[in-house]
């Protein structure tokens, strides 16, 4: 499955990724010398390879590089690798081996934390695909800012007026907006995978993804304010 996926994206990776990209030649396990299907962990003896400490989140979790992932599958992969990578199972090993497992385990936890959250997963994927960071491109979709500012004012008024029902209503609206943005991001990633060969389309898609993601983090912040206010009341 990985191979097919790699094939689809190969051109883009070469143009966008500066880091060398892996798995051209199969890696052999340093412990049992068997061929490894991923550079992270040996399929036979479960030894963690040194590559694991520097692998990207998708490689580490042995997941295809795409947005549309099953949360249960991400969780399952996370637990499976944790069973081999966690420092607890290597407490009696040499300091070097312990250090590797500490690093891989930290990287694994970071990978799971990122990939399980749709917005964080999208942002990470966007950076892998060579999209701009939020620091480089702060734009949001047309009309979004105006709508959000109105929501913000409504929320401030509701908090001021101590209007619990209104705060709850605003929180619900924000949640719907947030979910809508995430759905749109899913659609954009689908379009992206279908059009990887056409650079102009890809650039447009990456640009729009950035805008949608900026909007998501904006909506998230406001939603957090609203839920905090909700609980401060209740």
């Amino acid at each position, binding site marked *: 499955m990985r191979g097919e996926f790699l094939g689809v994206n190969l051109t883009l990776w070469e143009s966008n990724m500066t880091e060398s990209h892996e798995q051209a030649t199969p890696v052999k396990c340093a412990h049992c010398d068997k061929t490894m299907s991923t550079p992270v962990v040996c399929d036979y003896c479960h030894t963690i390879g040194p590559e694991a400490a520097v692998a990207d989140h998708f490689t580490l979790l042995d997941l295809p590089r795409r947005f549309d992932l099953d949360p249960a599958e991400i969780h399952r992969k996370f*637990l499976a690798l*944790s*069973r081999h990578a*966690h*420092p*607890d*199972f290597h*407490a*009696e090993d040499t300091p070097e081996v312990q250090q590797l497992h*500490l*690093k891989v*385990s*930290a*990287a694994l*936890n*970071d990978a*799971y*934390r990122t990939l399980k959250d749709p917005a964080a997963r999208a942002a990470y994927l966007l950076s892998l695909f060579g999209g701009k960071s939020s620091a480089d491109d702060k734009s949001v979709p047309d009309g979004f800012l105006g709508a959000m500012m109105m929501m913000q004012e409504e929320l401030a008024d509701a908090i001021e007026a101590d209007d619990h029902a209104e705060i709850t209503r605003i929180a619900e609206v924000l949640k719907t907006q947030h979910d809508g943005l995430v759905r749109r991001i899913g659609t954009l990633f689908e379009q992206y995978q279908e059009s990887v060969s056409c650079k102009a389309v890809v650039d447009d898609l990456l640009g729009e993804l950035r805008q949608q993601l900026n909007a998501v983090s904006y909506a998230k912040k406001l939603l957090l304010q609203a839920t905090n206010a909700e*609980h401060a009341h209740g």
Partner: protein
Amino acid sequence: MADNLILGIDLGTTNSLAAVMTPTGPEIVRDADGASLVPSVIAFGAGGVTVGAEARAHAVENPTATVYSVKRLMGKSVDDLARVMDVLPYDVTPGKHDTVCVNVQGRHMSPQELSAIILRDIKTRAEAICQPGQKITRAVITVPAYFDDSQRQATRDAGRIAGLEVCRIVNEPTAAALAYGLDRAEDACIAVYDLGGGTFDVSILRVSGGVFEVLSTQGDTQLGGDDLDRELINLLTEEIRSQFGAELQFPPATRQALRTFAEATKVRLSTEESATVEVALGGGRVFTRTITRDEFESLASKWVDHTIEHCARALRDADLGPQDIDQVVMVGGSTRVPLVRSKTKDFFQREPYTAVNPDEIVALGAAVQAGILAGIKRDTLLLDVTPLSLGIETLGGAVGKLIMRNSTIPCQAAETFSTYVDGQTSVDIHVLQGERELAKDCRSLGKFQLTGIPPMPAGAPRVQVSFMLDANGILGVSAKELRSGKAASVQITPAHGLTHDEIDSMVQESYAHAIEDLNAHRLIDLRNESERILVAIDKAIETSGHVLSDQQRQALDAAVADLKTKRQQDDCDAVYEAMGAANEAATPLTEAQMDDVLSQTVKGRKMDDV
């Protein structure tokens, strides 16, 4: 037991105990009488240092030399402790680096050293049930989940001072979940409600296929059963004062007695509807008070409500509702209080699980984790989280968060720093823990100084600092200058802890004490103690000498003279005996003084059933 034995230790505020992993499962370490709990109380007396029930028995008569609740002092500063200081009968003084020390008869001891005394005692008890000659050198020690970095470090340092390599610091609620879920195959969401003597934690876990994954944790390291006791102490104190005079002062012995009373009342009210306190006052006056459970519950209510608020927050952080929780596991002696059980039940909408002894479940879990680390238990894994966000102070005193709370540990974050001045070769970084936005409101973990940066124009160096929270939740820092590739060195000044050198010297000291002629050490203690007694007798003769008959006076003078001679010599037992004789001869004086004292204060004696 095997060589790779790692002891699981629950180092509690009120009680401590240990467990070991055996092929059939974790087992609690018990003495010949089957008792497992060792009261976390240390008494410094003429006969030496005692720990446990024996030490606790002397708490009322020797309040300033009996130390308990040391856990509340771990990794804390004097300012942190303002709320609890006034109820501690022993003398707490400021220590180095914004820590505290306990002054025991002129000997200043850090909480780490005091905890080490308890740990050493636990270790010795465990060794007693091992094969002859087997030494225990490694341990897993539990801490409240909400302990910050300073408190965790302090606990690990205490282990080191006690001669134990601390393989892992485990969170208490997580340990409890491990013990609870060990033999349960089904996947489930568990809430662990852990109300101990001095701390409260709630953790939400998901258990699937032997992996125990902590989703969120919340708590308060200064909220526990002690607070319920304090409510009762305050009630009694107020009423005694209103009945016998507002100016009434309470010396340490009385404070200790009231504390014992309050605790006993709380325990009694868990099974009875009411309890009566009877306090004998000087001059034949007696203070009697019946406290009903309702009355106690109205005093305790606000504290229990706090714990429920934490439960709500923990659920929110885990993105779950009460209906998602399959089981609520109750941990800690304070969960025996009926109000605690009923409020927890109401909140989670289910009967909490209380079948396992709530005092022992944490130690059992520590033993399971010890088994995992020793490689004898491979089918279970614990994935814990950090309870507090980690950040650094940025310009203007704000906090830039690097690691968010409830992140699974181990956890790493990196941040790049530069210089402000041409040729600058060092950068100061202030690391903080907590959820607040301003540095001054968070817990300072320490100032880190990066040195060895190659001299370059301002802003040119790029120093990447990596912060690693290991599986113990303890922070490690490393740094690298990216342009030169040179490792910058990191010097850490702990905000509320001991430096490596200080720990080393304490380890050395405790080692020295272990191998030195014990008599010599005991002799020093005995000489100090006898000096104290001689001074007290002198003073007593001055104020109450007239009560002595000639015969009594002669006997006392002889005993004092004998003690003065013996304490110049090197025979411990002789000094100890002479001290006993002097004490005995001074009894009429002490009694006379006691009458004086009792007329102005209270002295706890007994508590009757209703």
